[in-house]
């Protein structure tokens, strides 16, 4: 197997007395989709936020392309090609789809301090991204009025702006209708087609078992399984999550 794209060695995270993650080792390889499962409070979001640079681990090392890295915030991680779709999507409802896609990375013209927004270019680029994702979201629509699936598309399109290599998705299908879930799973397949490494956190077995290549299960901050999807089953995964099966 090729060298991992990103590797975690002995990562722990404590919040006071709470041990959110314990001595976690994990490798992610280029182009694979990893399903990350676990009960509420298992440490999934904490792991995502460490990879994304929002949290610093209490102990342990992160290696990107074999080199140790320290992310002090999310822009740091983003500069290294790591993008996140947050559980709540982190969208500004009062702005348009294109505004949200480019938030914090606007296309500008002119010279500082006389810089203005290139709305045309941002709308065109957003439209391309939505087309790539086969989403019907229109760049100039206000996000407030969008369906759950369209909102996901906006959050995912944002991850495609830069040459991102790793996209972390925290429960993208938790709060949307069944029809929209299919839409989001399609979006994930598009990312995969483009060679992006995806970490998909989900409570829904069908999501993980249809799109993921590998299954990682966390229980109370410990990694209790890390295996190919083909070698596992939804029954086993359920047992691992609840603790009925110790490890696998």
């Amino acid at each position, binding site marked *: 197997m090729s060298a991992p794209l990103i590797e975690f060695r002995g990562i722990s995270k404590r919040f006071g007395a709470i041990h959110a993650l314990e001595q976690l080792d994990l490798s992610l390889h280029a182009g694979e989709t990893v399903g990350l499962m676990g009960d509420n409070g298992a440490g999934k979001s904490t792991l995502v936020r460490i990879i994304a640079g929002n949290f610093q681990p209490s102990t342990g090392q992160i290696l990107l392309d074999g080199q140790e890295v320290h992310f002090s915030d999310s822009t740091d991680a983003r500069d290294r090609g790591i993008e996140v779709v947050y559980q709540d999507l982190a969208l*500004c409802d*009062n702005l348009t789809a294109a505004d949200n896609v480019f938030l914090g990375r*606007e296309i500008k013209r002119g010279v500082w301090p006389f810089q203005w927004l290139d709305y045309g270019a941002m709308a065109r680029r957003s439209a391309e991204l939505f087309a790539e994702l086969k989403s019907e979201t229109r760049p100039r629509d206000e996000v407030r*009025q969008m369906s759950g699936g*369209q909102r996901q598309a906006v959050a995912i399109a944002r991850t495609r702006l830069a040459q991102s290599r790793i996209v972390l998705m925290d429960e993208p299908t938790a709060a949307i209708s069944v029809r929209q879930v299919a839409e989001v799973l399609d979006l994930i397949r598009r990312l995969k087609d483009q060679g992006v490494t995806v970490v998909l956190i989900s409570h829904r077995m069908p999501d993980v078992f249809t799109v993921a290549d590998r299954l990682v299960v966390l229980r109370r901050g410990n990694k209790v399984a890390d295996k190919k999807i083909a070698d596992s089953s939804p029954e086993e995964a359920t047992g691992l999550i609840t603790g009925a099966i110790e490890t696998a």
Partner: protein
Amino acid sequence: MSTLPPPGEPVARLDLFQLISRWAAPLFLLLLILVFALLEPRFLHPLNVLNVLRQVSISGLIAIGMTFVILTAGIDLSVGSLLALAGLVCAWVSKGGMGDRFALGAAETVGYPVYMAASAAIAVGLIGGAIQGLAITRLKVPPFVVTLGGLTAFRGAALLFSGGGPISGFSAEFTWWGQGRIETVPVPVIIFFVAAIVAHLVLRYTPYGKHVYATGGNARAAQLNGVATNWIIVSVYMMSGFFCGLAAFLLSARLNSAEAVAGSGLELTVIASVVIGGTSLFGGIGSIFGTVVGALLIGVLTNGLVLLNVSSFIQQILIGLILVAAVALDQYALGRRNAA
């Protein structure tokens, strides 16, 4: 928003209500102008029109700064007090001290040039705004509380600084900025409209403006996307302070005097202008155009009722009712938009 529904979904009918609520304030302003013009011929006389605009320009300038603040879901209650403090400092610099504070006429003043007096006023505003912005972001005290503190503290500072009395009698170059005219249009009116246009362009077409809207819409999301939300928040209070300083300079020039009680209660007129203009107190929604309309609406209403000899108590009642009606309309329209 004039947007088409996505293909495959039912075509929403043109929402007439949305359209009306969006244009309610400008329409109401036009209606008021029409009614006053019919009832009182003097109302549309050019001198009266310029008079209304001149009266609006001071609170209007501060309302521009307040729009930035309210767009971030903040509020600045300190504007009236900061105006007074900045006005006194401005007057003090212009006179070169307290020595001849009551001297009328310009010839014998030993003070500093106008640009220095104006810069001093603006500097006081910027510093006052920065202190409040930092208290909000660093100490995590809500804007309402911080600026309520500013409202009393700046007023106290103004009283302390002035020793209670006014500072009056400036040079002709100084008073020109408040009393002068360019082609019959009062100077403060020109400054107000230029400032409004610049502020509009900044909010709509610059990354900074976008970040102000984003911070008000969803501060956490903006931050996760790399927007320096703390800096944005500090900057909007500085923006508000800047306009307080500018307005303080123009007001002192117009009145040929500065005093510690200037601008008492001004925050209410200013906030009313912004809110009547459709800017949401919850942040993220609003415009400078709306604020200009809101400021004009209050100015026109006050002036028209004075011309018609209506009691000023009734004016206050009316402005209060319009304020609540404007917000009720916006809330209702927003509810419909969210449901769409």
